[in-house]
């Protein structure tokens, strides 16, 4: 740059340039120092105990550095790793990227995961919330604002106000207002606290209930204590209706599970009169079919298709159970028609054999059947009442299966034959209906429906050889309660039992609740031996 020049004018230019350079350098020093800081913070994250890690997370959160978001997220997800030479990397699909520069890093040994515990997870969430308050994505801002409620920190109030001033999205602004109120609950004067309690009492968020509860317990000023208690009572009043609604939803959801489990039995026991103790095992076969389909999807199809495995499992579960059912009917049950006791014992024997066969093939431990993404989680309806997706799907699915089965029985020629044979076997044979074949198909249909139930139940229950034994008693209860031989009765029975169970449970507890329902059914059967909807006519008398 002409430093070799001896020209005095040139010398002046050089001096000026030097000064500029020096200034630039000076401006850079804090940045460099900050980079060194970040390095140190990261080192503390990797080598320190949980205490040091907590400190480091707080530092990262306060840094405002965009890279910190990725680092904290990785730490939370368990993908922040440390190599043998203490290099900190983010693992991504078997490659390792430097946490600071984002360059790929080669390692000889597999890097070790930096461990977190629940306390640290809360810190990470708070730190991420600080960083994400100004994120361009409204969903992230909303999550950040809600996260503040977990651990409201008065020191964060100015930042929240800043964020609130800049906020255009109404939902996010509301969340920020609540978060601000929550922070002033921690500090601030009595008037500010009272105002905060007033703001908070409008929300039914369980997190806020927790905060108010804390204030009601620990505040020193009596008027604040009273205000918090009053706010809690207001929330409880609002939530009372919601709770009853939640109980009824849970009852319908339990009812739909009972309906699914019992509906196949409503055919084999209700329509055909076979006391089928192996019904539960048909459900289990459906669940195992789901497991096999899932493994096939994992092995041979791209990962993006995986969420569809459950849909593919429905026909597979149906066919598996239907084929086994047909074989049982042709091989054993058809020789025992009209001898209910022998049928009971024979089918019970079959159920034990099926259980042991599955145990021999798949092993005794539970099999993992994962929920597809569209059946995971739920949404908060109100006041901490979470509607979970798998329950919603199962309610819809059970009603759809019920509707389809009703259509088959009422509108198809198979349905006509089934009804004819069960109502008057001899007359049906006389008019040329192949009664043996219809028996087989009916039993296969009932078993297949149980298989479908197994597909659905694999999503909420465990897939083990004992799956069927959990549902067999409930299934018989539903069918007998609803009225043998009547599909509508099965629907009413399942829903009635489900809702009764769930309304009793909060008061009586799960154990006593179940006993009360059983006693209720016994009494009911004493007075109406044929169940809710008794069939009338000759079929009943025979």
């Amino acid at each position, binding site marked *: 740059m002409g430093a070799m020049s001896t020209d005095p004018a040139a010398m002046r230019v050089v001096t000026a340039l030097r000064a500029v350079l020096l200034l630039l350098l000076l401006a850079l020093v804090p940045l460099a120092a900050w980079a060194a800081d970040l390095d140190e913070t990261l080192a503390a994250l990797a080598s320190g105990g949980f205490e040091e890690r907590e400190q480091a997370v707080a530092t990262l959160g306060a840094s405002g550095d965009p890279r910190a978001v990725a680092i904290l997220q990785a730490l939370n997800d368990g993908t922040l790793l440390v190599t043998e030479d203490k290099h900190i990397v983010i693992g991504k699909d078997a490659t390792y990227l430097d946490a600071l520069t984002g360059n790929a890093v080669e390692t000889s040994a597999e890097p070790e995961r930096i461990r977190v515990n629940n306390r640290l997870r809360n810190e990470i969430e708070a730190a991420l919330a600080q960083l994400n308050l100004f994120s361009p994505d409204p969903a992230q801002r909303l999550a950040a604002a809600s996260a503040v409620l977990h651990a409201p920190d008065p020191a964060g109030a100015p930042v929240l106000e800043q964020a609130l001033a800049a906020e255009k999205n109404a939902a996010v602004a509301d969340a920020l207002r609540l978060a601000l109120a929550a922070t002033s609950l921690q500090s601030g004067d009595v008037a500010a606290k009272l105002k905060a309690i007033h703001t908070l009492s409008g929300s039914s968020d369980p997190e806020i209930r927790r905060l108010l509860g804390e204030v009601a317990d620990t505040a020193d000023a009596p008027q604040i204590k009273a205000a918090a208690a009053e706010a809690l009572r207001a929330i409880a009043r609002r939530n009372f209706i919601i709770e009853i609604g939640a109980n009824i939803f849970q009852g319908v959801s339990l009812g739909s599970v009972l309906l699914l489990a019992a509906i196949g039995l409503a055919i084999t026991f209700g329509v055909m009169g076979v006391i089928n103790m192996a019904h539960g095992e048909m459900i289990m076969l459906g669940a195992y079919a789901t497991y096999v389909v899932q493994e096939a999807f994992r092995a041979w199809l791209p990962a993006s298709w995986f969420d569809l495995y459950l849909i593919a499992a429905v026909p597979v579960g149906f066919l598996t159970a239907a084929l086994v059912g047909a074989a049982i009917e042709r091989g054993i049950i058809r020789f025992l028609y009209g001898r209910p006791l022998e049928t009971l014992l024979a089918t019970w024997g079959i159920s034990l054999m099926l259980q042991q066969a599955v145990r021999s093939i798949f092993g005794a*431990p539970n099999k993992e059947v994962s929920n597809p993404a569209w059946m995971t989680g739920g949404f908060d309806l109100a006041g901490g009442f979470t509607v979970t997706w798998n329950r919603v799907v199962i309610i819809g699915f059970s009603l759809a299966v019920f509707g389809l089965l009703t259509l088959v029985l009422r509108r198809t020629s198979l349905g006509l034959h089934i009804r004819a044979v069960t109502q008057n076997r001899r007359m049906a044979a006389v008019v040329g209906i192949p009664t043996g074949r219809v028996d087989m198909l009916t039993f296969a249909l009932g078993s297949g429906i149980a298989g479908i139930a197994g597909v659905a139940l694999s999503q909420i229950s465990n897939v083990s050889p004992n799956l069927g034994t959990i549902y067999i008693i409930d299934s018989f209860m539903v069918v007998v309660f609803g009225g043998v031989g009547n599909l509508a009765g099965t629907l009413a029975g399942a829903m009635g039992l489900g809702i009764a169970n769930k309304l009793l449970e909060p008061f009586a507890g799960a154990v006593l609740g179940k006993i009360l329902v059983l006693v209720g059914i016994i009494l009911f059967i004493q007075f109406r031996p044929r169940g809710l909807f008794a069939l009338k006519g000759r079929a009943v008398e025979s």
Partner: protein
Amino acid sequence: MRQWLKTAGLAIAGLGLVSALPTAAAEDTIKIGVLHSLSGTMAISETTLKDTVLMLVDDLNKKGGLLGKKVEAVVVDPASDWPLFAEKARELIARDHVAVVFGCWTSVSRKTALPVFEELNGLLFYPVQYEGEESSRNVFYTGAAPNQQAIPAVEYLMSKEGGDVKRWVLAGTDYVYPQTTNKILEAFLKSKGVASEDIMINYTPFGQSDWQTIVADIKKFASAGKKTAVVSTINGDANVPFYKELANQGVKAKDTPVVAFSVGEEELAGIDTKNLVGHLAAWNYFESVKSPENAAFIKQWHAYIKDNKRVTNDPMEATYIGFHMWTQAVLQAGTTDVDAVRQAMIGQKFKAPSGFEAVMNSNHHLSKPVMIGEIQQDGQFDIVWQTKAPIKADAWSKFIPESAKLTADWTFPWVCGNCTEPKYGSYEH
């Protein structure tokens, strides 16, 4: 009739297994009984323990047997049917003359088989964590007692690192183990100044599959202004729907952690753990322990079971410790005679896969380390806390007044499992 059918069904299914066992009872073999359910509800957990014993027997024979004799396992199937445990135990001791029995999982099965072992002077190694309040002369307990699992877990959660928990849900299945454990925990919590209204106790029937109301209740209980944790003694099959409901209703480990005493690696293998990261379990061993002993144990297991995906767990490790201690005691006594082995058992030491040295105490319980593990995405546990040294098991809990007075000590001068003063008795039968 029911019994007959069950037995008949099992007999058909179990034919393969029975025919695989050598029936010739040569004089130069030492027989070992295996009393674990291979069918019925408990088969899910107990089958693995049967395999563990068979693996150890196999290994022992490869190394030349014991006292110059071949070791032979006699496997029976009590079929998760409690009275059958007593019957099969009698069969093993009286007919097959086994030197020792490894078996039982549920407390009720141990309690039904116990009188048989005491009557015929048999020897039972019981490998599962249990409620304590027992010490039999004929049983060695290699699982955890409450002070080796439940109490340390609760203490961890009370600590700052564990989240400073102030409010407790004690949720369990309705039978003896959860009820006794919760009784001990309740007394412990109250001794630490926790108020009654901050403890919620909830029992559910075996195999509970609908957890909606209970999880909603837990959420409600947890939103009362104090950090809340759930202590779960929920057993067996009920756990999968419980954890699924927790995940779906959005109960997060960082807000309301669940610490379980009956959920290990084997149980997690049946659950998708993506949404359960951070929930806890307390055991004396985790598969993720880094120690040369554990690496050898896992390698041996994978080689024996011919499946690298099969996990190891705490009751397996307890079986492993018990078996090795028994062989050590037999070698030391020079005989498999029950009275001699029992005496030799006390004080046996064994470097366990947990990385610590387990010691058999005179109350027939072990000294073992306590570990708290956190569920990870891959179905394994991260150890977030562990004791610095092994903890000695209390057969009788300090926190139940009537038990606190009792002493279990099978050496002179006590020679008793539940006495308030020494008996000065001898070991004779």
